[in-house]
């Protein structure tokens, strides 16, 4: 499945035009994390492979183990131009052309030496923490990795919000697994006892960072928006969706980011893009679905060329939905982790996703919404054509539909996507003209 994060390679590309202090900070945080991972075989630090949605970063932090997120490695490989070869290698090894390219990219990377995005080798996992949240493929992905590594695998099955709500039974199920399976597995590999007070401290820090993240994302409601909540948004969610939730670093990153955005608002500036500031906000759109990573900058530029700003996106909720009021709550540590896991975007049923998108279109005063449907991710993509119709019907705003993939460059047809986007924005312009 899909997941974001501000990758070092992308950060470098974007920063060519403008490099905020927060970007520099994030880049340094990520580099330090990957360096720690590379040093793990020498330092004895334990590494735990897990997934972004339903990640238990605060809990892992209490055991001082280092998270490795294969989705992030895959998307970084996509941005660094490595994914084509990795996917090709996996397909040669018998992996179907029909399945998730994140998985194949990861398998290909593993078979090619497991070199991470900073050029250093990633450590083998001491534990595979299968946080089975919002994506069936996760189950198979770690079964595949379990064949490659001689390490234990622990399952955390996070129930889907099929009826659009979290029930006590669902919460209890997750908490019971945390207590009886996940925590003992972490105790075993780390040699440390579970420390709930420490977890509470981590969760309190998470909530602080989450407040600032939400504040930043909601500035997309302003006109002009000081942020791009999709292309820019993937950088903003980086620290909180991955290895840094619950850390002081994350608090400082989001505080700094917030103050930068406050300054942009004060100056009446639009978002920073790879080509500089977007000076005229012609179109405001909401985007559903993950971005394409292999042509990320080109994809972004197709929007900026049209003067389009993404004011809200669902992808930036894939590692946690916070703008509905949820915050990690230190007073109920395991329960709040359960609620977090169950609340991630792809764990929401389709009616809830439709409601959320319709709300974004209205609350963010968008001209319309776009769906980038990626071949790899059925969790996102199955049902998106119905989402398109439903959101159009509920909001009266036009929807657009484009198709690409996460990290398989064979599925990014630049001219086709550009044509569709141009037509879509022309349609909005004509509607406006007709309306006036």
């Amino acid at each position, binding site marked *: 499945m899909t997941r974001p994060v501000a990758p070092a390679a992308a950060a470098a590309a974007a920063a060519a035009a403008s490099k905020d202090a927060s970007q520099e900070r994030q880049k340094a945080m990520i580099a330090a994390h990957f360096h720690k991972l590379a040093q793990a075989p020498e330092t004895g630090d334990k590494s735990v492979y897990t997934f972004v949605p339903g990640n238990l970063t605060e809990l892992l932090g209490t055991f001082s183990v280092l998270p490795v997120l294969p989705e992030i490695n895959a998307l970084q490989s996509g941005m660094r131009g490595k994914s084509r070869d990795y996917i090709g290698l996996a397909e040669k090894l018998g992996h179907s052309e029909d399945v998730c390219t994140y998985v194949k990219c990861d398998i290909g990377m593993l078979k090619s030496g497991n070199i991470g995005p900073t050029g250093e080798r990633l450590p083998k996992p001491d534990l595979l923490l299968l946080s089975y949240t919002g994506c069936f*493929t996760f189950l198979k992905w770690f079964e595949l990795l379990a064949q490659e590594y001689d390490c234990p695998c622990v399952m955390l099955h996070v129930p889907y919000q099929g009826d659009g709500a979290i029930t006590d039974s669902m919460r209890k199920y997750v908490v019971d697994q945390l207590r009886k399976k996940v925590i003992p597995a972490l105790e075993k590999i780390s040699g440390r006892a579970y420390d709930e007070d420490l977890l509470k401290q981590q969760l309190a820090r998470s909530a602080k960072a989450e407040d600032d993240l939400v504040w930043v994302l909601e500035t997309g409601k302003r006109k002009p928006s000081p942020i791009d909540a999709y292309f820019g948004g993937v950088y903003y969610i980086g620290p909180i969706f991955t290895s840094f939730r619950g850390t002081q670093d994350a608090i400082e990153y989001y505080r700094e980011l917030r103050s930068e955005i406050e300054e942009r608002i004060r100056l009446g500036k639009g978002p920073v893009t790879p080509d500089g500031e977007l000076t005229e906000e012609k179109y405001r759109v909401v985007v559903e679905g993950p971005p394409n990573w292999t042509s990320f900058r080109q994809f972004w530029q197709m929007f900026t060329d049209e003067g389009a700003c993404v004011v809200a996106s669902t992808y930036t909720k894939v590692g946690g939905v916070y703008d509905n009021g949820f915050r990690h709550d230190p007073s109920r540590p395991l329960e709040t982790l359960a609620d977090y896991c169950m609340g991630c975007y792809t764990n929401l049923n389709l009616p809830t996703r439709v409601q959320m998108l319709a709300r974004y279109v209205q609350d963010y005063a968008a001209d319309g919404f776009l769906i980038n449907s990626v071949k790899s991710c059925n969790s996102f993509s199955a*049902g998106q054509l119905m989402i398109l119709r439903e959101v159009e019907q509920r909001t009266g705003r036009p929807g657009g539909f484009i198709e690409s993939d996460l990290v398989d460059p064979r599925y990014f047809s630049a001219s086709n996507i550009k044509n569709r986007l141009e037509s879509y924005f022309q349609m909005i312009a004509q509607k406006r003209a007709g309306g006036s």
Partner: protein
Amino acid sequence: MTLASLLQRADDLYRDLRFSAVRDWKQRTGGLAVGYMPVYVPREVLHAMGILPVGVMGAGDDLEIIRGDAFYQSYICHLPRSTIELGLNGALDCLDGLLFPATCDVIRNLSGMWMMQFPGKYVHYLDVPQDFAPEVGGAFYRHELEQIAGALGKRGGKPLTAAALRRSIAAYNENRALVDGLYELRQREPWKVPTAELYLLLRAGCVLPVEEHSAMLRDYTTAVRAADDRRPMDQARVLLAGSFCEQPPLGLIRTLERAGCYIVDDDFVQIHRWIRGPVRADGEDPLQDLANAYLFQGIPSAIRYIDQQVKGKDLVDRVQQSGAEGVIFCAPSFCDPALLDQPMAVTAVERAGIPWTAFKYAENTGQFQVIREQAGTFADSIKLWSE
């Protein structure tokens, strides 16, 4: 009933995309009918509430998909398209609800689509546990079943009682035993039980009340055991893996048999064999017995976390138990569970020295020549070169 007329009845049921048997049953009994998607739901609960469980296995190659394709991108499998088509053309009006078991993200998301498209119907995503500890996953699963029973009770199902559930468990135990008996007979004498026939019988079990289906299975078993005109041929014994959700067209199964394969084990309509052996039918708490059966008697599957077990071991065991000489991986296009599982299964069968081949299909695949040639070559290679 003669064998021919029995098979004709099964074939009629298979091809009846209006679900007339379900409509007739509702007319006769006034009961509710609730559908289920692949792969597994505990039908016993529905049966005990006087509800007819109805397997919705897609529309095969008999229905032109027009509106269903407007709901899905090209890279999504075929089953949800035909299911939507059946919903929109009124074929599934006879169902008072539809259960969507946790099979994959496509089936999962279809549950939400169904809620929006058919707001009056009962829709439930059955999140089967991937934790198999009774006090953890078992408790969660039991609650899921209670929730379904409660909701269907409000819609007109009879209250779920322990006595009724015990009777239903017994009825399905008998049914499973009959299916298992046919699978065993096919393993011993595959010429007696052509898979195309067995498949039709399995599909009949998706729309008939369990008692009627069991009678059909009994009649068929008796008839084929006595059929002296069914003689062995020099065919290769193969196990077909991967067809547990979207079903292959009947023509594909016939093609494989005509290409020289005796299918001696398969994954078709897996709900009939998901639980191994009988579920306890005389316990104090039959709902718990049913939950325990899911936890401890469920078959290894691509959609089930296997924890510390070895991937592919079950497949190798099945090859050995069935006396198969090779494996055909026969998965639907774009089927995440089957296709992501396949490399691990291939590793296991290769390690065991078992020959294999692979191809993909869609439920509406209409051209079988290439498959026939591939399967024929595979069968020939087994007959000619295997030790």
